[in-house]
């Protein structure tokens, strides 16, 4: 089979939609649930037209009841269905923390392995849309703190599709944080059914001087920064984290041993975030002795996401800030 002929150029949101269509087609126990995901197509149009193909029993509009809706998905998953539950914005998952954290994540454990909760939560997240503090957050790290959950962040259309299919094949609850600014991004996507392995990071660019670990949209910003740095002779390796829980220690450690310099870039608030976890993990490992400079974290400002576009841009890592930080790190100016 010629892989090239199987690759189509499609957007991130089309890739997610294709994954859902494949799953709905192949498995009668798969259902979609969420607010306005039917004829409206979802707030970001990700489920557009699926209701026409699969009907309102499989593409279910829920009332504006995040706690109850997520809980219904959990109960359905516990008893034979495989729901894909869309939060309209990841921020609204906070209304459903009870069901996600106390119930979905813990049921298998509390019941001693006698129950399984194969639910998938889809969460449009991130800033850059001018939607301000309650519609722009990046809270994926919160869920990294919860045993029982799996937490994914696709950065490409190919991964967005493969991760959703992998999440559906997984017997445990999976949260997929999709980035709103990536929905329109195009990329090559394989046809048919395939799985992106959960818990495996991807090296998006090889380099020798500094390791940049990033997730979601930050991968693209890091790649752009790396390209600029290359012109100055600084070789950055860019690792797409892909999965926050489980986290791919091996790929990160191997890269740090090679470059001796590590920077973690993420859109969540810098304090207590993904960067802290990765930094600590490296410090506790055998890779510590390979470090030639302190580990740098680049995260969001210690503030809610602001409305003003200039402030909003300034609040989270951008290509220029990543580039500058990586340069300082490479030159040992930190």
């Amino acid at each position: 089979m010629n892989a090239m002929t199987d690759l189509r150029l499609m957007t991130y949101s089309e890739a997610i939609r294709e994954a859902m269509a494949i799953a709905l087609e192949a498995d009668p126990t798969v259902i979609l649930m969420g607010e306005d995901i039917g004829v409206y197509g979802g707030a970001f149009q990700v489920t557009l037209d699926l209701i026409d193909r699969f009907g309102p029993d499989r593409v279910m509009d829920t009332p504006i009841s995040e706690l109850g809706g997520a809980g219904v998905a959990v109960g359905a998953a516990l008893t034979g269905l495989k729901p894909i539950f869309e939060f309209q914005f990841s921020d609204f998952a906070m209304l459903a923390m009870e069901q996600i954290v106390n119930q979905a994540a813990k049921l298998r454990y509390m019941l001693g392995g006698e129950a399984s909760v194969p639910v998938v939560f889809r969460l449009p997240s991130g800033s850059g849309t001018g939607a301000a503090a309650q519609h722009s957050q990046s809270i994926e790290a919160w869920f990294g703190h919860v045993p029982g959950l799996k937490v994914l962040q696709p950065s490409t259309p190919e991964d967005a599709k493969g991760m959703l299919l992998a999440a559906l094949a997984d017997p445990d609850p999976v949260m997929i944080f999709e980035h709103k600014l990536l929905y329109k991004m195009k990329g090559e996507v394989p046809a048919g059914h395939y799985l992106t392995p959960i818990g495996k990071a991807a090296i998006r660019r090889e380099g020798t001087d500094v390791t940049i670990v990033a997730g979601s949209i930050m991968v693209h910003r890091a790649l752009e920064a790396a390209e600029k740095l290359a012109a100055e002779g600084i070789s950055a390796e860019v690792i797409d984290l892909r999965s926050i829980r489980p986290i791919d220690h091996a790929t990160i450690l191997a890269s740090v041993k090679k470059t001796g310099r590590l920077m973690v870039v993420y859109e969540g608030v810098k304090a207590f975030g993904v960067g802290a976890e990765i930094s600590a993990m490296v410090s506790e490992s055998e890779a510590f002795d390979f470090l030639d400079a302190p580990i740098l974290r680049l995260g969001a400002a210690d503030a809610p996401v602001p409305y003003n576009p200039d402030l909003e841009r300034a609040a989270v890592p951008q290509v220029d800030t990543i580039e500058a930080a990586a340069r300082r790190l490479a030159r040992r100016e930190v």
Partner: protein
Amino acid sequence: MNIPFAIRTYAPEILREALKRMYLIRRFEEGAEDSYMRGLIHGTMHLSIGQEASAMATCIELGDNDKITSTHRGHGHCIAKGADVGRMFAEFFGKETGYCHGRGGSMHIADVKTGNLGANGIVGGGLPIAVGAALSAKRLGRPDVTVCFFGDGANNEGAFHESLNMAAVWKLPVIFVCENNGYGMSTSTARSTAVKRIADRAAGYSMPGVTVDGNDFSAVAEAVHHAIARARAGEGPSLVENLTYRWRGHSKSDRNRYRTKEEIAEWMERDPIARFRAELIAHGVLDEAGANAIETQAQAYVEAGIEFAKASPAPGIGDVTRYVYAEAQG
């Protein structure tokens, strides 16, 4: 003579089994309390002594495919749904042979095989889950219904309102059974709840709501019977409110400072087991000797269950992270 609903409706052996399970619940709770005093059980517990008719009469028509979601006060529901008291004690003793392999304890007691999706440490936590289980039944074309137990305290959680609304909008086969024992910890329903009857809240979600004497086996069985029939016929959810009372404190930390001894004594006069037993004898379902035999049998099960639990192995310390995720296949 007026023949009570349960006597008219269920075969004598079913009724005798129900009485046995009610005794089993009572003796189980006493056994758990005693084991706690002896240090065999740690943590905390919420006993359902005094609420046995509510649990058993609600479950009398349910099969293993029908589901229940339960509460922190869930031992009675678990037994009424068909669980084995030995494995329950084993769970409370933290043993590997327990229903949850020692990971759940009293507050998460479950028996998925008999349809008990689990007690819950979160007030109101089981409500949306029950609606989800009913959604599964409807989508997968299964005839089973889901009974959702919850307390009067839970009716003020947002999850209650969201769940009733969705169940009604989607006409799901779920029966919401509120065990109104008058208090959420120390707070009486009068102080916590704007409506006099919690069943009145059903009207807000266009479903039938009825309040019954939760210590009257027949009254509960009849109300739930109609709700189940409605659910199985595809007509949607119902709310049944069982007025009852817990004889013991809320949990092990309760010093009973919010209610009077007289109130407790008054409710103990309305013992649901004694009432059901007398009813069965009055209608010739069994005689005094038969009832005594059932009671003795329940006691023997509980004693054997405690022995089983004591003799069971504890989980290995190295297995602390087992069951967090599904184990890798092959």
